[in-house]
């Protein structure tokens, strides 16, 4: 195991990684921006180094600053957490060049998975079901029409260079396709200076299902089952759970086997998440792979008993999966996570400021991951996640009951939080019945506005 690791992140995930290091007897180095001087990840690290001013680009995203800190603290490895530099292949390369172990997959794999079309093709070759669509860019309307006929309506046109919904159109019939193609092309050309489009099958209100994987550096891959993250608002996950009610044992086993084969071929290493959409018939389609630990990893930890961050550290230090995982992985009970954000529960505006009261729920089945505390400060520079509330029950009903109890005891004053939004969702019958998809939040919010 490493003697000393630098954690290149902040907030709850920095503390989460520090805890794992601590429990493995690894010395920890925190880095922080000037805005985070009084953060718990700084307080609870063995050493801490200020790497820049508050803006992320000047501090947490500043590769030379992070690497310099790693060098002067003389660490053997860097854990990037999630977000920030975690999926930055260049950063992983600089780490390698600096003789520092990057705790994650090799940069080549990160880069492959970062290029959506290449990732799709890699998965397709390994017989992972992917979303049907054009093989890359579409030349013109005629080609679009023939792809659409093959894929089946509805289809979605997306800008190759795009993002944020621009250059994106959903076509529900052959009649409307030509006009939509031209509109999307023009919009993409205008927005990105590149009008190239590709096409995918459009799935109405899919469920979001993802599989957790671990791969060691000796070529072994294991999946730790799935999570369902369909409760999203504007593609931001709000509530995650494991297992998914929609995944049958047979599907689980088939997908797992396919993923293990595929990721072995790719040479995947360390922790990763393979994301799928599920249509209303229960069919899964690969969409992308995240080459890092996820925010929602604790629900998998709850049902498997495996500490995923410790597993990352142990894999990176050369241990094999057979030493890390129990002989037989089993799902035990049901776990749900709520993301507690510093934002207005109705307007969703971020809420920075000083916390004036902070009571964390505890007791049987409750886990809280947070770097906040009474009188902590939420700076305005970073994302709004301030705590994760995770519950684990014998079944989903028990987990929901436990979450409702815990939410009612989670007291945060001084700033706005999403706690009351979560309370409303957990009181909702559709949610309780598991009747949801990624369109749930939109419908829920519309209903709430009416009420």
């Amino acid at each position, binding site marked *: 195991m490493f003697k000393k690791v630098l954690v290149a992140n902040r907030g709850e995930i920095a503390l989460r990684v520090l805890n794992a290091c601590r429990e493995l007897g690894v010395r920890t180095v925190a880095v922080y921006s000037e805005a985070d001087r*009084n953060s718990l990840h700084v307080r609870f690290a*063995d050493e801490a180094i200020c790497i820049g001013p508050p803006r992320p680009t000047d501090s947490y995203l500043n590769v030379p600053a992070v690497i*310099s800190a790693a060098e*002067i603290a003389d660490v053997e490895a860097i854990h990037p957490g999630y977000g920030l530099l975690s999926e930055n292949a260049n950063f992983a390369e600089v780490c390698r060049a600096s003789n520092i172990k990057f705790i994650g997959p090799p940069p080549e794999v990160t880069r492959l998975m970062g290029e959506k079309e290449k990732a799709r093709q890699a998965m397709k070759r390994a017989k992972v079901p992917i979303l049907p669509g054009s093989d890359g860019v579409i030349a013109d309307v005629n080609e679009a029409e023939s792809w659409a006929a093959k894929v089946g309506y509805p289809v979605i046109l997306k800008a190759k260079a795009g993002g944020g919904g621009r250059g994106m159109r959903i076509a529900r019939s052959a009649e409307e396709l030509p006009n939509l193609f031209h509109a999307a092309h023009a919009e993409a050309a205008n927005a990105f200076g590149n009008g190239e489009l590709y096409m995918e099958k459009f799935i109405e209100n899919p469920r979001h299902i993802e599989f957790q994987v671990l791969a060691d550096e000796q070529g072994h891959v294991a999946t730790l089952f799935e999570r369902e993250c369909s409760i999203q608002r504007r593609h931001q996950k709000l509530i995650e759970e494991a297992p998914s009610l929609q995944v049958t044992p047979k599907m689980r086993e088939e997908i797992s086997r396919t993923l293990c084969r595929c990721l072995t071929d790719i040479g995947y290493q360390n922790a990763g998440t393979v994301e799928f959409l599920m249509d209303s018939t229960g069919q899964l389609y690969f969409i992308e792979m995240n080459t890092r630990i996820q925010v929602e990893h604790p629900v998998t930890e709850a049902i498997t008993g495996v500490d995923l961050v410790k597993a990352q550290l142990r894999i990176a230090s050369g241990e094999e999966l057979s030493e890390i995982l129990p002989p037989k992985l089993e799902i035990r009970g049901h776990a749900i996570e709520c993301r507690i954000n510093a934002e207005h529960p109705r307007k969703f505006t971020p809420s920075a400021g000083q916390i004036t009261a902070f009571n964390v729920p505890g007791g049987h089945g409750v886990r809280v991951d947070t770097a906040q*505390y009474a*009188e902590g400060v939420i700076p305005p520079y970073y994302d709004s996640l301030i705590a994760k509330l995770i519950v684990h029950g014998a079944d989903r009903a028990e987990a929901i009951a436990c979450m409702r109890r815990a939410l009612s005891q989670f007291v945060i004053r001084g700033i706005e939080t999403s706690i009351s939004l979560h309370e409303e969702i957990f009181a909702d019958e559709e949610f309780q019945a598991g009747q949801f998809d990624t369109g749930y939040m939109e419908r829920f919010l519309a209903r709430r506005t009416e009420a």
Partner: protein
Amino acid sequence: MKQQDIDDLKQLIEFLKQYQVAEFDLDRGDLKIRLKFAQESAPSAGLGELARLIQSAPPAAHAPHAGAPAISAPSAAQTPAEEEDLHVVKSPIVGTFYASPSPGASAFVAPGDVVEKGQVICIVEAMKLMNEIESDAAGEIVKCLVSNGQPIEFGQPLFTIRTA
């Protein structure tokens, strides 16, 4: 200032103190008084102690392990020599401090030297790059606050300069 004035002033200050005044300004044309009492650390109630604990125990203070670089967590309040109203040159990057352009060479600057704004006063090595750090003020170098080869943080004070 006459003794009488001083006595009057003392009396006033004692009185202000007694009434727990924190700041006081007086401007009567011929007489200007500005006064601010030092914050009495850790007020009675002891509230918010965690936050203060964190502030008062910077990470390096509870991690003084042998072999570890002695990284201090400077804060504005700790900046040295401010009572003399000296200018402090802080490190704009994280890295390793070098006083001279190469091993064995003499230092860029030494206490007593007069420097121009923009003059190179040291090197901070980051990622094998030797970054020349320029003075952001003109004046006389009073003190070098770090030693050769020492690891330094972003914002860490390097030199004090008497600007005048």
